[in-house]
């Protein structure tokens, strides 16, 4: 049954995040609600799980906490396939099909940027232990350079059962959405249980859209927001195909500063209790608020915005490039653990082949002391074939910063391999940090065992799976001179010709004594060349005679007289 939800969270002072979540649960090949275009692609390419995210902007974990779905800047696609042979070919076909479906350049996710993560991307849906322990059927790839725009929002909206004309999706005004700091589209397909007995699996499709706004830029310093100000529209209808049509607003901070009030008044307020975190969620049943006029949800603040410190999330990370010059460099990733307990973390990096990572330079340090990781999976790159793949499992100590560093050397590419703006640089995709948190502070994702958001409101679990993406990196490579191919070929061949000419002369010709005054100019040489063809029988004995003494090792005391005599017959050649 499909459900639509919309969550607003004030993620930090001055920023508001809206997440738009649609979950559709359907039986296999039952296209009543499940989009047929996507379903066809999934069945043709034997896809068991698919996770695609298209993001513009960077989610600031230390300021905004954790989003419901964490996504790196650019496009990220990871897929678990049904067991079959020739997964590489299926993957290549799948990315081509998806690039057509989502209007994104996913076809660039070829072997140069695709990896098979061993520990970081386990199946999110139903999967057997044996199947998920093997990384043969998973493929992960990112396109950090990809730009997301309205072209990508339209096919995403097309997948919705009610389309973009009615229901919550009608709020999605592309002009306003792409004005924000951060927006992320997500499509997640996985297998789930249909009922508690779980005899047959169902396919669940979850579409998410997360947008981060800055409301204070509009109104006189106050953080007031409303549907009208954010989307330039109000909610006028609801999708009849949806089972649950709700709007959730996080009102945990409503009573503390800054105070705000919601209009219209919410239907009721829920308490979400998760280990270490309590939240108050105001719930709106859309149907109750549509008549007489459309729903324009408003939040009005009493005071102007004042900035203060926000609390840090339990685990967050930062990554940056070090070094100078275009020959070598280094990458440092700092992972912060603000909890008072240790936690184990899986750190995955995919580095393109042209940044030659030196495995011997990989160091994990905590407070100056070196940490030995529990496990390392390092697959070196093959030029123009695979990227570097690095997965590290190690411990983060409580209340500390762990620093991962490695150095690389920049390769020299062929002139055709540079993108149009060669000096802009090359992007390195985000690192992925996966961990299991014991506390749910600032954690907003739904737990993996449930499909709908409200099922995770009464979550009694004590471990919360967290996946973080760090910043992407921009690295410059040394460029050749693109205007010079002809010149370079000519000059290099000239040098080879100097050698060839000299060696050819020295090996095919002999020293002879000749009279410089008898040597003719060019025109006379040409004339005598044509004459020589008529007189060749006469000249032959002459030239033979004078060559013999200079070549053979006989006594040739008279040879210099012979040479000077024969110079006449010899000089034209």
């Amino acid at each position, binding site marked *: 049954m499909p459900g639509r939800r919309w969550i607003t969270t004030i993620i930090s002072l001055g920023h508001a995040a809206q997440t738009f979540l649609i979950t559709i649960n359907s039986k296999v090949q039952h296209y009543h609600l499940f989009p047929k275009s996507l379903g066809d692609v999934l069945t043709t390419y034997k896809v068991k799980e698919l996770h695609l995210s298209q993001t513009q902007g960077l989610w600031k974990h230390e300021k905004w906490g954790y989003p419901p779905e964490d996504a790196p800047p650019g496009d990220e696609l990871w897929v678990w396939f049904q067991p079959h042979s020739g997964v590489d070919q299926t993957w290549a076909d799948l990315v081509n099909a998806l690039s057509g479906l989502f209007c994104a350049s996913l076809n660039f996710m070829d072997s140069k940027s695709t990896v098979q993560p061993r520990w970081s991307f386990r199946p999110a849906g139903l999967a057997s232990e044996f199947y998920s322990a093997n990384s043969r059927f998973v493929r992960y790839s990112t396109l950090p350079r990809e730009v997301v725009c309205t072209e990508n929002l339209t096919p995403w909206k097309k997948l919705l059962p009610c389309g973009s004309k009615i229901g919550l999706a009608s709020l999605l005004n592309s002009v306003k959405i792409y004005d924000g700091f951060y927006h992320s589209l997500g499509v997640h397909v996985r297998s789930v249980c249909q009922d508690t007995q779980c005899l047959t699996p169902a396919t669940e499709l979850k579409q998410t859209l997360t947008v981060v706004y800055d409301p204070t830029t509009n109104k006189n310093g106050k953080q007031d927001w409303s549907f009208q100000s954010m989307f330039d529209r109000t909610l006028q209808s609801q999708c009849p195909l949806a089972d649950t049509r709700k709007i959730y607003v996080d009102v945990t901070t409503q009573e503390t500063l800054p105070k705000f009030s919601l209009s219209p008044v919410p239907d009721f307020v829920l308490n979400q209790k998760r280990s270490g975190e309590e939240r108050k969620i105001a719930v709106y049943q859309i149907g109750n608020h549509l008549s007489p006029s459309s729903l324009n949800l408003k939040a009005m603040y009493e005071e102007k915005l004042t900035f203060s410190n926000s609390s840090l999330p339990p685990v967050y990370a930062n990554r940056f490039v070090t070094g100078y010059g275009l020959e070598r460099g280094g990458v440092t990733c700092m992972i912060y653990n603000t909890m008072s307990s240790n936690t184990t973390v899986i750190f995955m990096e995919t580095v393109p082949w042209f940044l*030659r990572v030196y495995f011997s330079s990989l160091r994990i340090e905590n407070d100056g002391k070196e940490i030995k990781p529990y496990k390392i999976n390092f697959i070196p790159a093959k030029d123009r074939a695979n990227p570097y793949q690095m997965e590290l499992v190690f411990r983060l100590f409580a209340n500390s910063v762990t620093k991962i560093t490695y150095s690389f050397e920049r390769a020299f590419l062929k002139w055709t391999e540079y993108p149009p703006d060669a000096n802009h640089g090359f992007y390195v995709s985000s690192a992925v940090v996966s961990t299991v948190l014991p506390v749910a502070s600032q954690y907003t994702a739904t737990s993996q065992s449930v499909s709908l958001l409200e099922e995770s409101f009464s979550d009694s679990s004590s471990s919360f799976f967290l996946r973080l993406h760090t910043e992407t990196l921009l690295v410059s490579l040394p460029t050749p001179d693109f205007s010079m191919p002809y010149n370079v070929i000519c000059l290099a061949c000239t040098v080879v010709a100097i050698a060839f000419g000299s060696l050819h002369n020295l090996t095919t010709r002999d020293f002879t004594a000749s009279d410089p005054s008898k040597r003719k100019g060019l025109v006379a040489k040409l004339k005598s060349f044509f004459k020589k063809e008529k007189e060749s029988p006469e000249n032959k004995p002459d030239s033979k005679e004078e060559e013999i003494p200079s070549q053979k090792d006989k006594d040739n005391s008279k040879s210099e007289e012979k040479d000077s005599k024969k110079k006449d017959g010899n000089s034209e050649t």
Partner: protein
Amino acid sequence: MVLPTAISFVCGVILRLALFRSSLPDWLSTKTEVVTPLTSWGRAMEGLALHREGISPYSGDIFHESPLMLKILGFISRFSPNTINLIFVLLDIIQGMILLRIANTFGRHMLLRQATSVKNYHPDAKKNLLRKEDLMDLQFYVTVAFSFNPYSIATCLARSTAVFNNIIILLALYQMLKGNSFLSAVFVALAAYISMYPIILCVPVAVHYFLMSRKGGMHYTDPTAVVSYLQILGVTFMSLAIMLLFSMLFVGSWEFIPSTYGFILGVPDLTPNLGLFWYFFTEMFEHFRTFFICVFQINVVIYTIPLAIRLREHPTFLFYMLLYTIGIFKSYPGYGDVGLMFALLPLWKHVYQYMRNTFVTVCMFLVCTVFAPIQYYLWIYAGSANANFYFAISLAFSTAQILMATDLLFGFLKREFYLHNGDKHKLPDGTDAQIILDS
């Protein structure tokens, strides 16, 4: 001449030891003129780190040494950095000692050859003949050329693995001069195993073997001669095959072949160096890449045939000329090859007076050696130059090497001409005739 030789040898060793204490080795090991992707110590260490971790060093594209070198370098790398420096100085000492022996044996070899062929010479050529006194100080000159040669010092300080290649080639030359042609062929095979191009050195060894065992007026194309060539070639290729087989057994598969020989032939890595390949193939149209790779690789070895025919009486000089062609035209040249050329140059000091371009060549070498790191720095670090500056230096350096090689060949052939024809050539009217190259 023993004392000056010993003093210069010891000075060379002390110079290397002293320079190892400075920051020069770390700087030189990053210089692309000195180290190439094939000979870099940093890459060798990376390959060994992967090997120790259980990952095959040939699964990536950083390590390109052959498995035997993997073993030797693994053994060396276990020591502390200071001991590793000492080991490289020791390798240079070994190289110097082999050069001394070569100089010694070369002198004797030259006198013997001269004695057999002096009856073919022109009577006026007596003053051009080699004398024992000249050859006595060959050892000194060779030692000076090796000990104070900046290219050899740079190769040693940068811990380039080209020193192993040079030692094997020098051993091949030494055994050839001593008369052990089969042992020389085995060393040629070992050098080819390490860096592939020295396989063409089996031609001078084969010619030398034939000349040593020639009886009477046997011609080069007689069946007996061909049999002797095939014997040497057979020994070379057999040894190479055995080495490859052992490597396969050590690594466990044939995956090292694309990483080593495939890498040398296919030139996928376009790191700048003082050769002709890198920028040519950076700017090459993709459509023609394979064609030009073939052309350039054939260019390295094609000079063997004409040079062998021309220098069939002088296989030692042929060996030396082939070292030039390898060092200039190979896919990843470095200062190791240049150092080897300069170290052996004093053996032919009797040819110097017939060379024409020595001043130009020496100036070009000096300028290029000084300019190369400057232009590289300006391109990569300062950002105020571009790749063309460094490319120009690489072209000029290659031209300087070519000029030196062809000038030396010219001088050698001219000396041969004067030996056989005397050096007084007069025209009928009494003026001097010009000696030119003509067909």
